[in-house]
């Protein structure tokens, strides 16, 4: 039997109290002179013996109750004898692009397979893949053959290296395992990039041995195409930025292809660092994109880059006039002002509204004649609409006629935060794969509860009432925000999440194509509607249905055909920083992640029980049964105490 909090066992010393009381109360040496013992015969002796027995039993029960209470607070748990002598190994696989360096993957896989061969029958192993986010390729299992075959079949990808998540997950999984020997087999190239952000002072849980292989040697030849830029002028040139990672000069051949046809090829001399190489070419008018590649070096994955040649349309947003600072207009125009494409805005026309642009309504005049007639016709025609509720009677009446019930929220001392964000909703595509914390931090001081059969909640108020909803009516996309868009009602306009959210919502509502067509592996590409995603590179021939967004796991030239028939081409390339294979400068620091299972560590560490013990105790919950037994003992003791009370 083991104890999670053995300090509470010291409480069992309290059994001295009932024992002391028992002996203080008993005075067997007292002599009582009595007129006659004729009425205190054998039966009295029997009664006395029985009574004495009951009193001893009561004492034992009291001691037992104290011991049980101490035991319950000490949180008992059993460690399976078999598990305590077995071993468990977690293989953390760095499947980032850098692992594609020549010979690196196979060499490390052989080393890990050798390590797995040391495990025997009853031992457990698991495969943890690091990217794009840590996930279990093979969960902990005693089927070591499955683990080995899983490792054999695994292949490196094109993601950017990041070790922190996998290190934490592997540590927690091992700590939670009751096995005596816990091994973390680190199958990674110790790339400097991967260890950035890892707190080296935060060691693994105690008792975990980490096996880190030898640091992979830097490749002799390593260059990468990190950027492609085409001049806007027709018939202009293409500029490829090639980064050479080796200190020595190198001569490389660079080839530009379009639709499988070589457009140009030239040999260049590269120096360490970035080399901007102008490449004259004249692609066919129907070419979707360019494939630019270097002759292969020790890391071929980053020797090819793609460039989409198709431009993107610019979406138009019509807004009603705002009082005070027009945060929405600023947000919508922000990317355009930076020269990276974007949206253009315009005031709502006095005449009939065109159906194509997105209309954002946030004030009462839009719901008054004659504008409300334009609004009705616009909605009936299927125009995209985004309404910010400000609580005016005209607005509430209009919404009520359309089956949406809006009720104001009672103001509170503390600001509200939106909860229950639907991460799968297309308006959140900009946050897909990233943290939703920027959205959760936004404060609201004024708001309205939305209710209606045709509403699909996107986010809720803290009490669960709908705050932001998609309004699906007749196949149209409308967005209804249960708060005014001004600083008196929310701090969202000055919050970092405002611009990406507004842009994504506007693109989704207006089905605007994103002006950006150059993306990196691991980034989430927002898509205006559902459609088909297909690779234009023969190496990746498969296609898939997508909606809202997609996160490509491999580089290439991709085609997206929306259900509406619109077609767009995206170029997805390797993150440039992943091409830097420089290892972590201090390998000894990595070895110090391992924390010995020493009982005489610092006080803080001793006070914290191992995670595996907590898990074992949590699963068994023996303390509950001990408490139940204690309760029964208390009841019996009460009954006996009443019979033996003096």
């Amino acid at each position, binding site marked *: 039997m083991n104890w999670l909090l053995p300090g509470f066992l010291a409480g069992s010393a309290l059994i001295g109290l009932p024992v002391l009381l028992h002996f203080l109360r008993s005075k*067997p040496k007292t002599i009582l002179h009595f007129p006659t013992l004729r009425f205190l015969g054998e039966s*009295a002796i029997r009664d006395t013996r029985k009574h004495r027995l009951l009193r001893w039993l009561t004492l034992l029960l009291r001691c037992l109750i104290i011991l049980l209470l101490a035991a319950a607070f000490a949180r008992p748990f059993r460690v399976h004898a078999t598990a305590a002598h077995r071993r468990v190994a977690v293989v953390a696989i760095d499947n980032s692009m850098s692992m594609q360096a020549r010979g690196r993957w196979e060499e490390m896989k052989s080393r890990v397979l050798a390590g797995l061969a040391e495990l025997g029958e009853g031992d457990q192993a698991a495969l943890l893949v690091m990217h794009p986010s840590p996930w279990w390729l093979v969960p902990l299992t005693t089927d070591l053959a499955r683990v080995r075959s899983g490792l054999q079949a695994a292949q490196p990808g094109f993601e950017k290296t990041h070790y922190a998540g996998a290190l934490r997950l592997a540590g927690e999984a091992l700590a939670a395992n009751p096995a005596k020997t816990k091994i973390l087999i680190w199958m990674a190239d110790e790339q400097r990039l991967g260890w950035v952000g890892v707190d080296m002072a935060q060691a693994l849980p105690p008792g975990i041995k980490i096996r880190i292989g030898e640091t992979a040697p830097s490749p002799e030849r390593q260059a990468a195409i990190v950027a492609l830029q085409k001049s806007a002028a027709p018939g202009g040139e293409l500029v490829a930025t090639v980064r050479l990672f080796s200190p020595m000069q190198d001569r490389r051949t660079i080839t530009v292809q379009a639709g499988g046809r070589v457009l140009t090829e030239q040999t260049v001399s590269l120096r360490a660092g970035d080399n901007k190489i102008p490449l004259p070419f004249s692609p066919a008018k129907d070419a979707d994109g360019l494939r630019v590649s270097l002759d292969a070096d020790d890391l071929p994955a980053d020797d090819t880059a793609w460039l989409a040649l198709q431009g993107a349309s610019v979406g138009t947003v019509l807004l009603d006039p705002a009082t005070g600072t027009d945060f929405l207009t600023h947000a919508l125009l922000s990317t355009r002002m930076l020269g990276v494409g974007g949206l253009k805005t315009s005031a709502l026309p006095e005449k009939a509204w065109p159906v194509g642009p997105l209309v954002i309504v946030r004030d009462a005049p839009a719901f008054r004649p004659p504008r409300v007639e334009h609004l009705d016709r616009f909605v009936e025609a299927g125009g995209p609409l985004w309404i910010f509720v400000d609580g005016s009677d005209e607005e509430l009446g209009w919404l009520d006629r359309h089956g949406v019930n809006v009720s104001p929220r009672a103001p509170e001392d503390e600001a509200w935060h939106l909860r229950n964000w639907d991460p799968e909703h297309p308006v959140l595509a900009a946050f897909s794969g990233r943290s939703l914390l920027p959205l959760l931090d936004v404060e609201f001081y004024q708001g309205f509860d939305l209710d209606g059969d045709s509403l699909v909640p996107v986010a809720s108020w803290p009490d669960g009432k709908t705050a932001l909803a998609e309004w699906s009516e007749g196949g149209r996309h409308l967005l209804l925000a249960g708060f005014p868009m001004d600083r008196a009602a929310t701090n969202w306009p000055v919050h970092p999440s405002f611009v990406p959210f507004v842009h994504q919502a506007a693109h989704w509502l207006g089905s605007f194509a994103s002006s950006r067509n150059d993306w990196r592996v691991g980034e989430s590409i927002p898509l205006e509607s559902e459609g088909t995603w297909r690779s234009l590179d023969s190496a990746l021939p498969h296609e898939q249905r997508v909606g809202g967004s997609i996160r490509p796991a491999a580089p290439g030239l991709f085609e997206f055909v929306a259900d509406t028939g619109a077609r767009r081409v995206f170029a997805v390339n390797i993150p440039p920083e992943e091409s830097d294979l420089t290892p972590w400068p201090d390998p000894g620091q990595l070895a110090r992640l391992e924390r010995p299972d020493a009982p005489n560590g610092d006080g803080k560490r001793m006070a914290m029980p191992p995670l595996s013990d907590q898990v074992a105790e949590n699963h068994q919950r023996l303390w509950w049964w001990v408490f139940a037994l204690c309760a029964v003992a208390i009841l019996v003791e009460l009954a006996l105490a009443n019979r033996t009370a*003096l």
Partner: protein
Amino acid sequence: MPRRVPRAIASQPPPLPLPPLDMRLLAELPSLSLQARCMVEGFLSGHHRSPQKGSSVEFAEYRAYQPGDDLRRVDWRLYGRTDRLHVKQYEEETQLRVFVVLDTSGSMDFQSREKVMRKIEFARIVIAALALLARRQGDAFGLGIAGAELRGFLSARSSVSHWRSFIGKLEVVSPAGKASLATALLDLAEVVPPRSMIVIASDFYEETPRLENALRRLRYDHHDLIGAHVLDPVELDFDLDHSGTFVDAESPGWRLKLDAPSVRRGYLERFGEFCSELDELFHEAGGEMVRLRTDRAPFEALSLYLAQREQRL
């Protein structure tokens, strides 16, 4: 609520001599009548009925004249009406002989608390009071001291000097270990004239068959028997709250290690049966039993009993 074991019985009690009789207490004895339940035979005339028919003041019956009868006792009026000679017979009133018996066994030397009297001291007061009542109404009173046998005896008289002897005898009484009340009563039966009133002050811790035998013997002589059952409150209630070694007062070698609270219920059951048995024995012997607690005033229960007895008679 049970009480703690009093210091008085939780330690080895030294054999303390009895204090002198409290004459002031006796002086407070209320005016009561000690009335015999049956007819008594005495030498002096008193206010108790005598079985002897004579020339006293209270008419008893007629009988036919017989030669030799005193002619003065012939009822001439009746002769005038019936033409037959009858003589009058009268009830003769006589003096009562009251014998009080004091049990001096070791069990009578018991006092559960400082505030209550020792049983023997209480019994001594009671029998002295009874003797005083007898003396006040001109009856003769005697004394029997019961130990292993009849240890002391004073025949029944009513003179002043006899009262002094009576008190002197009571004051030198001391309780002694093992006693036999039945033996003492049998001895007493041999020396006490018939038709006397015998008051026995004791706890009656005697073997029941022997006591029954002694009482039957006393009944044979037509004695008027009164049992004064003197008991300490602890004997009656057994309200002790402790464990310990219980020592028998009359047989110190007999010891029991007991827990008082746990045996209380059984003790009270058996003690109740014993008291009922005693009542039955006295009833069968034509006597009565009065139960006296030493934590009450000595004359309280006694006065009540005598008053009720007088009403019954």
